[in-house]
């Protein structure tokens, strides 16, 4: 909030801030560190059969990374939320424990001369994720480039989607992975952020103009065309994702996030009802037309009927939950696998929550769900305190992307809804997922920063002039699209 003209003289440099202690964050991070250290000792002791801390190097590296993020926020004087980082750090730390505990050869990747395995790779992704979060939280000076170029973002997203359609590789029957040389990623993880940016900008722009104007179609009163069209477009995109990518989870997530944002923007229950009706219609169409959707539903209704076939994974996941019981087997004491194979296929990605439920029990599982609710509360608080509609909708959407995705995969793991393969944010193994969620975390922290604002014209630096040039280019693209 750069207000008074003299304010520029009180800050140390353009855009810089005085260091500010973040006491609550520090305390909470300390508590997280204690909990994770106990977990690490428990895991190492259980694996060694005697009391030991094992080789704590990965844990120490993780603490250094989180500490660095905390110090960066402190040094640059961020006033933003102090609970999101500890919450995410707890989840990431649990992820590190679980990845250390699973068979290390589950994933092996050569980076140059280094041959990294599951836990080491995950630590790399965690580092990237924290770096992204910190860079955005500290570096994001304004959100002009987010809100102004919404159509460019949307176009970029659609191009990304098209690339996956055309060149994607299949993982577990879903076409998700895009490979570029040695780098492989799942663009739908980034796509969800792009989509939220676009939707937030679109809805914020048209909100003031369009409240209360209905589209009339004969006797039907439908939402204003400006809402109806994107609703239908989103519905179509979600269907297309299911049909072409076979990615039920992403489709469900995109549609759900969009629908909630639409409702938050218009607050008309009719829109919500219409959206749900469209969802039901879409679900029925997909179920009737596509065997892969029907199969998912059949597994959901009775996985035990095909316990040795298509239902194997879900059944094995439920077995793990059952074995865990209330207090769990303890870290490292669950079943990594019999005869070397993981007892649940994809336990490190889609089914990490069942491994967590086995080793930490119902108590641990509920605690982790609680952490996601804390993230939800903080994110929505940032949204409701935001300076304008765009930021409020953006923060809401980003929060939902995390907590609804967690809800979708956990509910699928627990056979409450059909299983859809999405990752558990901050916990599942995977670079794309961790990076995307790191960006979300960074954006939320940036939006929580009260001083986030428009650039001051009088302090244009060379770098900002470069930025202007980029903006001009963006404007041209934007005009071409609209």
């Amino acid at each position, binding site marked *: 909030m750069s207000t008074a003209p003299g304010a520029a003289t009180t800050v140390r440099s353009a855009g810089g801030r005085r260091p500010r202690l973040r006491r609550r964050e520090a305390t909470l991070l300390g508590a997280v560190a204690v909990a994770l250290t106990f977990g690490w000792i428990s895991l190492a002791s259980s694996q060694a059969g005697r009391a030991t801390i094992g080789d704590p190097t990965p844990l120490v590296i993780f603490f250094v990374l989180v500490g660095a993020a905390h110090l960066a926020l402190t040094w640059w004087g961020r006033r933003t939320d102090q609970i999101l980082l500890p919450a995410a750090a707890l989840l990431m730390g649990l992820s590190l424990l679980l990845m250390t505990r699973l068979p290390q050869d589950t994933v092996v990747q050569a980076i140059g001369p280094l041959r990294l395995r599951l836990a080491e790779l995950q630590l790399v992704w965690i580092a990237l994720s924290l770096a992204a979060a910190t860079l955005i939280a500290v570096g994001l000076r304004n959100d002009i480039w987010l809100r102004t170029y919404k159509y460019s973002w949307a176009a970029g997203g659609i191009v990304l989607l098209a690339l996956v359609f055309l060149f994607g590789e299949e993982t577990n029957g879903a076409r998700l992975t895009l490979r570029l040389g040695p780098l492989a990623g799942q663009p739908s993880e980034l796509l969800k952020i792009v989509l939220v940016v676009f939707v937030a900008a679109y809805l914020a722009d048209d*909100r*003031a103009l369009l*409240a*209360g104007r209905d589209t009339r179609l004969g006797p039907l009163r439908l939402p204003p065309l400006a809402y109806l069209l994107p609703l239908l477009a989103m519905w179509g995109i979600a269907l297309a994702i299911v049909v072409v990518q076979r990615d039920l989870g992403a489709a469900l997530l995109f549609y759900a996030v969009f629908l*909630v944002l639409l*409702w*938050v*923007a*218009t*607050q008309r229950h009719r829109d919500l009802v219409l959206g749900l009706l469209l969802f039901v219609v879409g679900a029925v169409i997909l179920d009737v037309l596509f065997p892969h959707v029907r199969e998912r539903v059949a597994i959901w209704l009775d996985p035990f009927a095909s*316990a*040795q076939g298509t239902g194997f994974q879900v*059944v*094995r996941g*439920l*077995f793990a*939950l*059952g*074995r*865990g*019981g*209330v*207090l*769990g*087997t*303890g870290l490292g*004491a669950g*079943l990594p*696998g*019999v*005869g070397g194979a993981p*007892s649940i296929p994809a336990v490190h990605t889609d089914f990490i929550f069942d491994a967590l*439920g086995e080793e930490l*029990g*119902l108590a641990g*599982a*509920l605690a982790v*769900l609680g952490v*996601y*609710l804390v993230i*939800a*509360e903080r994110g*929505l608080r940032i*949204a*409701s305190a*935001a*300076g*304008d*509609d765009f930021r*409020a*909708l953006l923060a*809401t959407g980003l929060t*939902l992307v995390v*907590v609804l995705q967690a*809800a979708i995969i*956990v*509910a699928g793991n*627990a*056979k*409450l809804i059909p299983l859809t393969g999405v990752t558990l944010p901050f916990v599942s193994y995977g670079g794309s997922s961790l990076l995307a969620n790191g960006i979300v975390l960074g954006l939320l922290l940036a939006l929580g920063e009260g001083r986030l604002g428009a650039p001051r014209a009088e302090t244009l630096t060379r770098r900002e002039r470069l930025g202007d040039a980029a903006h001009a280019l963006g404007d041209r693209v934007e005009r071409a699209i609209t």
Partner: protein
Amino acid sequence: MTTPLHGGPPRIAPALLRVGLALVVIYGAIGAGLAWWQVVEAERLTVDPGNPLIAGAEQGGRRGSIVDARGVVLVESVLGGDGTYRRSYPHPEAEPLLGYISPRFGSAGLERAYAAQLLGVADATGDTGLLRKFRSEPFMAQDVRLSLDLRLQKAAMVLLRGHRGAIVAIEPSTGRILALASSPSFDADRIVEPGTGDTYFAALLARPSEESALLDRATLGQYTPGSVLKMVTAVAGLGSGRVTAHTTFPDQPAEEDGGFLVNGYRVIDGHHAATGARALDLVGAVEVSCNIWFAHAGLDVGADQLLRWGAQLGFGDAIPFDVPTAASSLDGGDGFVDDVELANAAYGQGQTTATPLQMALVAATIANGGTLMRPHVVDSLVDAAGHVTAMTPEVWRRILDAGQARVLEEAMRQAVEGPLGRHFAGGAKVPGVPTAGKSGTAQLGGDSEPHGWFIGFAPAERPRIAIAVLIEHGGSSSASAVPMAGSLMATWLGLAP
């Protein structure tokens, strides 16, 4: 935050509160769902034979023993010279019920179904999870004690020697299985023997399916039941009230010669002794096994009632039991297509199939005054500390009242001891003991020899054993199943006077 103009868009913040509440509800539901699996269903999931925990525990420790009703060890773990346990099966007579457990060939029978209990994954003391992780020995192996009596089981296997078939003997008042024999069978010791296991198991698998020794014919074999199924029709008739003890069909005597025409299909009675112009009642029809009487009765009872009362007795679904069972069926699972199928089913032909266990339950129901006890072969679990978990006898279904059951008991007694009945089933008579039963010779079409069946119980008034005997392609039941049943019931009454 811009102040909303009058009539402008609603403020966002209040809506976010509702979004937050909705998320709390969603997460609450997920938490409840997790509690369902981790608390309510935890036990059932953990003892599921498919749970890899079972295979994991298998490598770790000793399994409990399986012993018969008198404590004779049927299966045990023996410590070998290399410090590992090996499974030993000293009494192959009790296969395939006992099954086997082999790291190479998987598991079957009680060894599979009770893996969790034998390993102690499921606990006799009931604390399945909460504090187990604090115990140094997380699993306490349990012994499984059966209701089976090895002496009777051996006698049954001797009778079946040289035949393909099955015998199920059950204590009618409790549902305890006394013998459950299937022939041909296998020697589990040879399956788990590292040296010979491969060739032996390969030879077992190489057998043609109808000669399979791995198949438990008593619980999984589905056979055309023939005339023993008439007792099901009789139960349905009395139960539904559509037939009484005195029901006669005036056309029946005449149709003994010309056959009973149903929709152009002729139901015929080829073989029973001439009953002349006498119209048979229920007892008489059972005694001489009159197809025509039962075809009439089946049509009078009707498809719905026959299926309904059949389902009461266990038809239509796998019978809940300690090892897997196959479903028996009156209609082939697809309903009766017409009256011809219904009439044929009423005397055990048509699309009917039954497992020997199912037919033993029919006999046990009549023997037990119309009440069907839930069948079980596992009597109790005993852990190393001496805790006993007993499976108490349990009423499964009350099907007929005592008076109705007595009518059927009288009919079955006449079938064994009556002046006309004894020509068919007299061989099942236990000397000096009133005996009830029903024989069956199931026609299979083509050139194949019929299956021979007998179901019955003794002593007729206070039955201590109910039995079903099936001999595949045994020809006339009088020659095979009937005398075997008599011999086995006599053996049991001699063993347990």
